[in-house]
């Protein structure tokens, strides 16, 4: 086996190349084709360069949003799977996405007007929602020494999602018509954000999540074998689990506040990445961040183009891809 250093570089380089390609190609595809050469042609003034305007102003924000949301949800998926010792744990199967969605819904519907440290209310509420939902799931897992069995995990997730969905519906019921229209679209998972502002708004959250998760991959390897074993190998388990939970909740909250609860990214992406690079979290986490970004860009590309000129919410595409994939994993795991 090659040493870890080489495998890490290879992982980052290859998934990075995939991401760079999708980032450049996706904005060229659409109702009008954009020439990459013209879009990056510095000799034409920006005001006269239609290709560059479509590329950077009309389409790029959406592509960047897809990248950010995909990366954040994939990272959260990796972390949840290690913490709960189950490869089927994801923000959506656990109901954490629903928690984030409920938080954001409440903030939108009741026009919360708080900002903390420059962070707007919606992403904040979304973060609080995901922390609360994760707290419930984690308390369940902590009560059982060997992590959550798939059965308990899925039941807990279904129950959480059902419970939170009814609260979301109740919130919608109380909302006025204009807000309802907005939130219904958003709940389907939409990346049509119209500018960079929503991404910039959650950058501090994402930066904090990145900082918290960056030191964790090796601890996650050990925690996935059991918290007692991890402690015996020198991991400060309480601190690592806390950092992982807060980091993953921040990532989920940020992603959901931008795009709504886009499902199955946290399941499909880490699974594919593990098949390619192995299970070492020092490879799986960066690989999933990069590939998650590329994957959601591609899903959104499909959402924009398959039924053109009609655009469908990207959440429908990811669910159509992820649902069967999840069932296939479940059938395989139960053999």
């Amino acid at each position: 086996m090659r040493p870890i250093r080489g495998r890490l570089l290879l992982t980052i380089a290859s998934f990075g190349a995939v991401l760079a390609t999708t980032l450049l190609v996706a904005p060229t595809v659409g109702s009008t084709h954009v020439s990459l050469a013209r879009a990056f042609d510095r000799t034409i003034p920006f005001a006269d360069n239609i290709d560059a305007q479509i590329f950077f102003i009309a389409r790029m924000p959406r592509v960047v949003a897809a990248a950010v949301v995909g990366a954040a949800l994939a990272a959260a998926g990796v972390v949840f799977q290690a913490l709960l010792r189950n490869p089927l744990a994801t923000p959506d199967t656990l109901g954490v996405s629903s928690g984030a969605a409920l938080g954001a819904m409440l903030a939108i519907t009741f026009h919360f007007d708080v900002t903390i440290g420059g962070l707007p209310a919606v992403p904040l509420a979304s973060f609080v929602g995901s922390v609360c939902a994760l707290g419930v799931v984690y308390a369940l897992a902590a009560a059982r020494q060997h992590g959550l069995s798939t059965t308990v995990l899925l039941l807990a997730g279904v129950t959480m999602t059902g419970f939170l969905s009814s609260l979301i519906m109740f919130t919608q019921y109380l909302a006025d018509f204009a807000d309802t229209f907005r939130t219904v679209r958003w709940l389907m998972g939409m990346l049509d954000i119209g500018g960079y502002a929503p991404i910039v708004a959650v950058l501090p959250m994402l930066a904090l999540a990145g900082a918290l998760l960056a030191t964790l991959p090796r601890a996650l390897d050990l925690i996935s074998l059991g918290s007692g074993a991890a402690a015996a190998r020198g991991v400060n388990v309480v601190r690592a689990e806390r950092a992982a939970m807060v980091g993953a909740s921040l990532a989920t909250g940020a992603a959901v506040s931008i795009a709504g609860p886009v499902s199955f990214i946290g399941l499909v992406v880490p699974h594919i990445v593990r098949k390619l690079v192995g299970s070492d979290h020092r490879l799986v986490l960066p690989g999933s961040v990069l590939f998650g970004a590329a994957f959601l860009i591609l899903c959104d590309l499909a959402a924009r183009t398959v039924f053109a000129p009609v655009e469908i919410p990207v959440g429908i595409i990811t669910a159509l891809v992820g649902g069967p994939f999840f069932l296939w994993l479940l059938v395989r795991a139960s053999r």
Partner: protein
Amino acid sequence: MLRAVDVSFSYRDATKRTANGQTPVLDRVSLAVNRGDLVGILGPNGSGKTTLLRLLGGTLRPHAGSIRLDARPMADWSRRDIARRVAVVPQETHAPFDFTVLDIVLMGRFPYLGAFALEGPEDLAIARRALEATGTAAFEERAFSTLSGGERQRVVIASALAQSPQLLLLDEPTASLDIGHQIEVQRLLARLNTDSGMTMVLSTHDLNLAAALCRRLVLLRGGRVLAAGPTEEVLTSNAVRALYDVDAAVERHTRSGRLTVVPLGRI
């Protein structure tokens, strides 16, 4: 090297991470482990064996009494520094992901690496030596989850050895293994102790394993030490009766020359 004096512990107000909701209590347990020792902890289910091992490994803190590692109180050591000296082999290890055998063994290097450091050639060499020592080098590329119980246990021991510890704590290392794998693990532990001078403390339900392997025994019941001392002196039919309420014949086996325990009936 490790000395526990009058250690008491209860799960009542700690996080309830016990196997089956019981609250095992240790009551003023004392134990000294010297360099090169091979100590066995015997006792019925719920007698506090696992809890005692966790306390000795520093992953639990005693409510009363003191535990000293190399004459320094356990509480003064960092997790990382303990892990460089004491390694733990849990009863069972489940890997939820497809880690390879080498992946698992390299995780033993954790206490030697900084937050962003990756294993270098030296770490790899130590891991390979641990694989050799446990006879698992042949399947370093295989997925851990595809191994048999005995192979898995040897790999986990290799992972513990990769920590370069001076003391190995093993929780029922041969439970759930068939007799072929039991004897493999038993030989491995005996060799590590005699050849490399590895100090070990292990808990077990297998009295014959304890008789064959351990130099000293600690008999634990209801969280208290019933007896402690050299195996030959401690392992008697009276001791078995007091420990398990079982009538047993403890005799020297003619071919192996070891003490053997044959349970005859429940009292």
